[in-house]
């Protein structure tokens, strides 16, 4: 009877347990099948399990070829106000920060009010403050604290810099100032995590250098510490640029630009055997922090297009020699004018020079002679075949951001005229960048091989050094042609007793005085020139190729009087920096294989 009385209770209890079990089962099935809810729950779980933290690793340093720092990171502070502190004095903080940094007092007050109104824990007042400023703030903070302790006045006690703190953060820093700024480019660190390197090395190698601030999920569970992702710091880059050569080149260039009242200029120094750029001076130089939108030409040496003039004759002569159509002694009768495409071509002096050899053609820089070579000897097919083989009309591929290029106009193109063949032979009607021109001519200094120009010597990734290996871009001419032309140009310099010569060193070179195309109309500007010079040496074992461009010098009529002496000055400086003894000493040294010259 008793048992009968209790069974409904048991049944109810059993039913309750069954229902609870069923509920759990339904929920479990629901969670497995309804991924949205499951995701929400997983997220909620992770939020409890993880702390989010912003971690910033330093951007890679940039060094010159000898380990001198060209770009690094300096410690700065983000000044802020901790709003969780009691008794903060917003007016005092705004007034002091405003006085220290020259910020607007009302803007600072608004920033603090906005942060307070939105329940933020911290208001940012100033970013990238120097350590000196941070120290000044801490000192002021202490002064206020001392004042409050020693004063009976409630007002004095109410004023303080309580809550003002600084979070360390790194800023890009260029210890050499504007030295090589055109090569280095810039990194606008003040843009924070979205900052991107622009121009030069900073732009070209941004992905290697960068280590953007990252949000990391730090597990609260200490057992999961092993799962922490290790953030890589940016790679360090070692450039081929030699700081001392770069500095000397910039000084020489600045002086030349000032002396000849030029609009700008470029001096490039390359090792023709490897394509390593030893110096790339460019004037005007832009500051590292100058990112003005009007700034289109950050580095004239890689982005400025201009008609090079007679330095281009080196390529025309190289083509004719390599094709076996002329020799240095082949003669040409120069009567002072050459007609092609309905236009007359004149020499620079508007004179005829009679029967001349090819060496004399280069020595006197005769337009008529070179036009004859392109039109009558090489013909368009061969001429343009060689010019393209030299890389004209294409980018050199130098590892700097912002390289410019102007397509080479070829017969059959819409904007190609017959006269172009004649004018192209002496560097008019064709646009190149200084780096493009120098790279092409470097073939003559390197046994016919063009090496890819580059500024990156090596990079250091996780402590491991990865070297850049020289690459051959092309071989437009044979080694024999290259040596023959080098000798011709050396003889040409010596015969004219050029101001480019340097005692003790046998050098080859060519001047280039080019007319400047008018922007508004067809034809060229009156009385305005571009002066260039390309040279290399020592010619039996070239260690450097130098390219000089003075942009529209007002005080010079010819490259021989403006750019050529600059070349001599450059070589005098280079031989000391490169520890390159005069030819006689060098040849003596070669007899002693283990000897090294020391100045």
């Amino acid at each position: 009877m008793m048992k009968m009385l209790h069974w409904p209770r048991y049944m109810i209890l059993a039913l309750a347990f069954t229902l609870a079990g069923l509920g759990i089962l339904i929920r479990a099935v629901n969670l497995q099948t309804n991924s949205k809810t499951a995701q929400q729950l997983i997220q909620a779980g992770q939020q409890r399990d993880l702390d989010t933290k912003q971690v910033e690793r330093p951007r890679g340093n940039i060094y010159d070829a000898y380990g001198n720092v060209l770009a690094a990171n300096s410690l700065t502070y983000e000044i802020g106000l901790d709003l969780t502190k009691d008794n903060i004095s917003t007016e005092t903080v705004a007034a002091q920060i405003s006085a220290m940094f020259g910020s607007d007092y009302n803007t600072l007050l608004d920033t603090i009010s906005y942060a307070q109104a939105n329940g933020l824990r911290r208001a940012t007042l100033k970013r990238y403050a120097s350590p000196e400023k941070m120290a000044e703030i801490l000192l002021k903070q202490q002064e206020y604290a001392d004042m409050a302790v020693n004063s009976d006045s409630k007002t004095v006690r109410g004023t303080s810099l309580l809550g003002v703190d600084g979070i360390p953060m790194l800023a890009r820093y260029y210890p050499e100032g504007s030295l090589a700024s055109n090569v280095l480019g810039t990194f606008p660190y003040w843009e924070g995590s979205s900052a991107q390197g622009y121009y030069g090395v900073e732009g070209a190698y941004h992905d290697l250098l960068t280590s953007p601030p990252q949000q990391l999920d730090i597990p609260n569970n200490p057992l999961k510490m092993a799962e922490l992702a290790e953030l890589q710091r940016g790679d360090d880059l070692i450039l081929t640029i030699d700081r001392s050569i770069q500095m000397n080149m910039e000084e020489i260039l600045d002086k030349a630009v000032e002396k000849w009242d030029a609009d700008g200029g470029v001096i490039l120094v390359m090792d023709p055997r490897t394509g390593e750029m030893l110096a790339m001076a460019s004037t005007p130089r832009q500051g590292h922090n100058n990112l003005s939108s009007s700034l289109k030409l950050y580095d004239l040496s890689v982005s400025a297009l201009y008609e090079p003039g007679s330095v281009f004759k080196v390529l025309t002569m190289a083509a004719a020699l390599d094709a076996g159509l002329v020799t240095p002694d082949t003669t040409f009768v120069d009567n002072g004018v050459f007609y092609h495409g309905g236009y007359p071509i004149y020499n620079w002096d508007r004179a005829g020079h009679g029967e001349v050899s090819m060496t004399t053609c280069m020595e006197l820089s005769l337009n008529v002679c070179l036009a004859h070579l392109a039109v009558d000897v090489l013909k368009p097919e061969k001429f343009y075949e060689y010019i393209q083989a030299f890389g004209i009309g294409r980018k050199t591929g130098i590892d700097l951001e912002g390289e410019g290029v102007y397509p080479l106009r070829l017969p059959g193109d819409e904007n190609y005229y017959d006269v172009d063949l004649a004018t192209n032979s002496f560097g008019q009607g064709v646009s190149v960048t200084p780096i493009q021109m120098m790279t092409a001519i470097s073939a003559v200094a390197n046994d016919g091989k063009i090496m890819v120009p580059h500024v990156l010597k090596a990079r250091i990734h996780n402590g491991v050094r990865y070297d850049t290996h020289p690459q051959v871009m092309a071989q437009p001419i044979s080694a024999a042609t290259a040596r023959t032309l080098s000798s011709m140009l050396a003889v040409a310099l010596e015969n004219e007793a050029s101001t480019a010569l340097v005692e003790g060193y046998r050098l080859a070179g060519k001047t280039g005085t080019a007319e400047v195309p008018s922007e508004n109309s067809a034809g060229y500007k009156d009385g305005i020139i571009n002066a260039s010079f390309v040279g290399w040496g020592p010619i039996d074992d070239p260690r450097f190729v130098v390219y000089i461009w003075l942009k529209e010098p007002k005080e010079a009529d010819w490259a021989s009087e403006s750019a050529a002496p600059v070349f001599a000055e450059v070589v005098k400086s280079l031989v000391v920096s490169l520890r390159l003894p005069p030819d006689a000493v060098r040849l003596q040294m070669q007899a002693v294989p283990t000897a090294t010259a020391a100045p």
Partner: protein
Amino acid sequence: MNFAWLNGMNTNQLIQAYRQAPWRTQLQWIGIFLLILVLIASVLGLFLDITARTSTAGRNIQLMEDEILQYEQNIASLTARLAEINSSANMRKRAEKLNFVPVDPNEVHFMIIPDAQPRQSTLDEAPAFQPTEEPVLLQPEYTLSLWDWFSQTLTSLQNQQVTP
């Protein structure tokens, strides 16, 4: 054997003769309970010890990672400071102060020095780091289960005994 004395006893008396005293039974139960309690406490204590040590190690790692970041920032800053001191402009000023003048190439005398080393970069001389193996972040003791730890310890003890 003489079992005559059994004849005089009934069953209850026999049970009574062999029954433990109640206080003795209680003591035994309490003893067993306490033994189990001690065992559980020991296991829990072991767990607590391991967890505490793991937590401490984990927190230490977090603190050390923060320290690494701080050191990295300081190193970066000091590198920048050193670079500024050694910048070409500053070096030139110092050289001028010491009455050095830029060399005139015409005054340079080159000498042949057998076996002299050419100018080298400090970065060239730096030994290249060769990564070998993954660094151990946590010792195995902190990631082992109690059972694993127990069996490993036993195995190592056995090995120690076997080894003369």
